[in-house]
């Protein structure tokens, strides 16, 4: 029998690790709680770094290869920190038909990044999704967690502008 429940100390005394621990506990420190645990890590820290993967692997007594394998298999997990702000554009069928690819191209060229990348100043991450389930309102995008439907190019640009500008003002 592999030794379970032998508590592994978290990488730091950051309080967020307690939330992660609670998730693992709820699943009895079983390996099948891995995906739930990774979700919690990502929610708490924004992304999955090496340190957190090692910690989760040790706590669930799972090989690091499995933990790494799972975190790279699923699209929702990110191994890189996200930018200050995020914009997720939907590329599901309905949004595709309603002209999202053109809008995405515009955004890409305006900010000089490709989908999946973050601007060099760390301000904006541009992500894509496969259907957000709001197809009735296509095209749809999510700006910093708030979803916007029936989006038009002008509106998309001004929302991005607002999002990234607010911080510049604050910093100045």
């Amino acid at each position: 029998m592999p030794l379970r429940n032998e508590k592994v100390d978290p990488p730091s005394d950051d309080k967020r690790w307690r939330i992660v621990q609670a998730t693992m506990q709820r699943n009895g420190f079983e390996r099948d709680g891995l995906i739930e645990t990774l979700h919690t890590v990502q929610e708490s820290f924004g992304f999955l770094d090496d340190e957190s993967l090692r910690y989760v692997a040790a706590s669930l007594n799972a090989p690091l290869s499995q933990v790494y394998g799972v975190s790279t298999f699923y699209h929702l997990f990110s191994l890189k920190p996200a930018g200050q702000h995020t914009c997720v554009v939907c590329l599901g069928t309905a949004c595709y038909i309603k002209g999202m690819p053109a809008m995405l191209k515009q955004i890409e060229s305006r900010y000089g990044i490709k989908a999946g990348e973050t601007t060099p100043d760390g301000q904006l991450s541009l992500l894509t999704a496969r259907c957000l389930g709001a197809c009735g309102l296509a095209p749809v995008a999510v700006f910093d967690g708030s979803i916007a439907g029936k989006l038009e190019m002008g509106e998309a640009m001004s929302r991005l502008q607002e999002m990234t500008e607010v911080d510049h003002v604050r910093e100045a």
Partner: protein
Amino acid sequence: MYERLEEITLAEQESTARFSHTVNVCMAAGCMSSRSDAIKDALTKEVEANGLERWCRVRGVGCMGLCAHGPLVSVDTDQSAETLYQYVTPDDAPAIVGALEGPPVERLHCPTNVPFFQRQKKIVLENSGRIDPERVEEYIAADGYTALIKAITEMSPAEVIDEIIASGLRGRGGGGYPTGLKWTTVAKSEGDTKYVICNADEGDPGAFMDRSVLESDPHRILEGMAIAGYAIGAGQGYIYVRGEYPLAVARLKTAIRQARRVNMLGSGIAGTQFAFHVDIRLGAGAFVCGEETALIASIEGKRGQPRPRPPYPAEYGLWGQPTLINNVETLANVAPIIRNGGDWYASLGTAKSKGTKVFALAGSINNTGLIEVPMGTPLREIIYEIGGGVSGGGQCKAIQTGGPSGGCIPAEFLDTPVDYESLAALGSIMGSGGMIVMDESASMVDVARYFMEFCMTESCGRCVPCRVGTVHMHNLLDKFSHHEAAPRDLVLLEKLCDMVRNTSLCGLGQTAPNPVLSTLRYFRHEYIAAITEEAADLYAITPAPPTSRNGATQHAPAQEVAS
């Protein structure tokens, strides 16, 4: 055994009896994304500010269907028929509350005497938009959980299964496998522990039926799962939900907690020996996890890669135990079937496709949203009457059904009744119920390329035909869409379609060529038009006749020869 339900129903009726007016605000994902929560707050404040809270209540309900006109608010009164308001904003609260006792606010009024509302037949969606999904009391007051009690107190597991068989219900996850037969197999499989899994992965990008059911009527799914558990002898169920659906997850969590509280889940349900527990498992953005064996791997905390079948999950599923996997909509049909009898359900629909089907209308159509119609309803009625026709005054060119595993049905077949067999005969599939309408501006080659790109990125990489084949097919389609193809590319594309379909491990690869095959079948001229002149001069065009699913040769449309 029903006493507890009656008690709750009575208490619910008593507590609502004093309200002569009810204002319902849609709190499903579509309207929520246009801030319907702020509308609900504004309406509540307005009612209180006018001191009307003694006889008027404001509540959140599930999806009302007409997402295109959201946010939607409806007003029910003792006396008059329901009034529906569309495109509501928080600023409209005073007007709506002011009109509670008078004629409706004209500028927000959404007529309900139109085909969109009148032509539907609601079984799965019967509670959607009519009850607050976050209150089990409302579900129970709408006959909720009576089917579960009926099943576990008045019927044997075999009788439950017989009822499902009699209903003719077929899987709504895409395949259309007879549900009763699947239940029978799992019930017969040997094993001490069995599982019920609800497939709420809803991978088709452009479909939102399952999401809406989960958000609007989550108890319906729990009840269906518990009945299934009783029928096959399982004590534990899992709902595997897409990670992209946080609201659905939250509603399900609430529902599970409440169902336990009223003893409709947990041990000793309603004072019987029957115990059933439900847990939620989250997906993390992988389309292939909708495939049943991949889904099982994912629940076990692994990479979601499918494995060859047989053995089928019915015999060797979650943790090696017999497992029943059904789609959300399939399970949503279970409680009404047990309540009203299998024969009642079988009286709806066509000879081989019984009951109703929920469709998500999207794309170039006026009434985007969610509808439920009897099986066998012609596409034309769905698109032009219920759907309100093509948006922007355009013409319908084709309808995509079945997502990445489906195909494009050209407008000339609009009179086809929608059922499993008719759609398959047209080279598409029923799929889970996404229906995307495309107007003349849509390029069919681009649509095929779009789906191939989807399958290419979503291929899990386990088997070579799918992993490599999808990349090559995508590259070829790319050439066509940039008008850089040579005639031999067409030959190669068809060969690859054939190979990938016949040699892939799981349904993802086996069906990935479908969008290409169906567009080749009906819109071959668009492919041929994409062959560059220089290239075409070099090679003689000899298009091979496309073959249908069962291998029979189809006649290619005449115009391809001309072009």
